């Protein structure tokens, strides 16, 4: 299978257009995509002993994986978006079920969604899991950092506030002071983050 060829014939023109629109940051395109495939995933999860909330969680995770890859431009789609999303969500749900259940898990699949294997979803989900772990460690490290470092760093890196705004918000005398404080916080964060992140096995 020739993965890594985004113009492969199995992609419909609509899929291509949709991906292009999402990459350019069109929120309406994302909303459309979201609405389009929700019934499929919701049906799948409900059919496999999940609830409506489970379906929503799984679907949002799945769309997240897709969306982040589209935005990074690292998406290599060898099938329809629909099939890809199905494969990703299937993998995610399987993982949750296995961790929940004492018995072996067997999934009921809708045949119409075709070959969900070899869609590259497996690797993408694994990469996403690794990313999740990294973010969880980061969140942990931020929680341990304490105020005002945490708010300062979140303000700058997460919420994209300018240094001037932060200076006045935190009551520093000038922007350089704020910057110095930020770097010190960053150093502490680095220690916390790498201490936890490197410990865990990859």
């Amino acid at each position, binding site marked *: 299978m020739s993965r890594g060829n985004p113009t492969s014939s199995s992609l419909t023109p*609509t899929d291509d257009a949709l991906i292009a629109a999402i990459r350019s940051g069109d929120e309406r395109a994302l909303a459309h995509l979201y609405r389009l495939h929700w019934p499929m995933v919701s049906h799948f999860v409900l059919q496999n*002993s999940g609830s409506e909330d489970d379906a929503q969680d799984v679907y*949002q995770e799945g769309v997240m994986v897709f969306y982040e890859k589209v935005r990074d431009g690292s998406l290599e789609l060898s099938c329809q978006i629909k099939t890809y999303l199905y494969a990703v969500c299937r993998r995610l749900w399987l993982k949750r079920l296995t961790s929940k259940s004492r*018995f072996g898990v067997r999934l009921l699949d809708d045949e119409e969604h075709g070959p969900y294997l070899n869609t590259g979803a497996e690797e993408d989900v694994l990469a996403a899991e690794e990313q999740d772990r990294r973010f969880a460690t980061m969140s942990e490290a931020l929680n341990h950092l304490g105020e005002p470092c945490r708010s300062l760093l979140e303000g700058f*890196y997460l919420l994209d506030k300018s240094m001037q705004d932060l200076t006045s918000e935190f009551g520093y005398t000038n922007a350089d002071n704020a910057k110095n404080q930020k770097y010190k916080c960053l*150093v502490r*964060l680095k220690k916390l983050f790498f201490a936890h992140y490197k410990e865990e096995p990859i």
Partner: protein
Amino acid sequence: MMTEADYYALFEAYSHGELAGPARTSLEARLSADPDFALRYADFTELTGTLRAYGRRQQTRQQLRGLHAAMLAAEAPAEAVVAEKPATGLTHTVNPMLRISRTERKLREFWSGHRATVGVAASVAVMAVFATLLGLDIWRNSHLPTRSGYQALRLEINNLKHNQKVLDKTIKRIDGGVAPPLAPVSKFSGTGFALTSEGYLVTSYHVIQGADSLLIEGKNHQRYHAEPVYSDIKHDLAILRITDRKFTGFGRLPYAIKSGQADLGERVFTLGYPREDVVYGEGSLSARSGFEGDTAFYQVSIPVNPGNSGGPLLDERGNLIGVVSGRQNDAQSAAFATKSSYLVRLVDSLAATAKATAPYHLPRYGQLAGSGRPQQLKKLQDYVFVVKVYEKD
């Protein structure tokens, strides 16, 4: 000496491209020359990269949550959009949204969540029911010594004999001798007694049921071939005739056959072959009807065993009053015997159509009245036989 924080300021400026020419070149030179320094820079980029990605992830999550809420809030418009799209060239098939009530949704969720458990529970219940029934049945059977159990034992002995013969035959064949044809082996046996001095006998129908050939064996091991003449399935009677040419007759029968009914409480006895030797059993006539109220039978309190079937039932004076037929398994010593009146009636109807060469002459007078039981039995023994039944394999 620069602190780590100073380095971070430098790195940030560098990564944002704000560093002036000479400072930039010296930094790049140091990055390529000093691995520790390069590692420090890598850590910095990873840290800030992760921070930014984390921020983006949170935004996206928020966005998706908003999308989902908006979709749920405007389900009808969402459906409209979905419905419109195919018209604009969309090739996807979309699962229709199911509209179901709240209770039904709950039920569906319960069912889909516990389907496997419910299935397992149901099959366990079904299996438990069947196991209980089967167990009860086995228990009940094992606590009742049934006549079929006893017969199975006889059958096994016969099988043993059979196997021995086969073995003999095999040995002979190995020795090179010509093996004689294998004699058929008796499968069942019962009791029979003489009906007339000319060679008619009586036994129970169920003894000879399915018989291929019959062999009559007396007390002194004299053997005769016999053939069934008439069977009365309803009253469990069978009339046999000895077919051997050398057979001359039984001589005068010591008992008479009673055509009337016997009285309740009469002392009765029987002779039979439940095993190889003749066995005597006595008791009294306990009822004038048989199993489930069948008036063709008497109930007698004589302990009988498989093999007793077809034996004569006699009263104190040595008159034949019945033919032993069976017993009730779940009652204490309740045996049943066909009334002799039915036998007399059967013989009368046969006598009307009998051939002149083989007439029926029923014994009219008994010779046993007045003598003691051992004397009676001595005389009787010569007229009671083993009926051996052979079946084709």
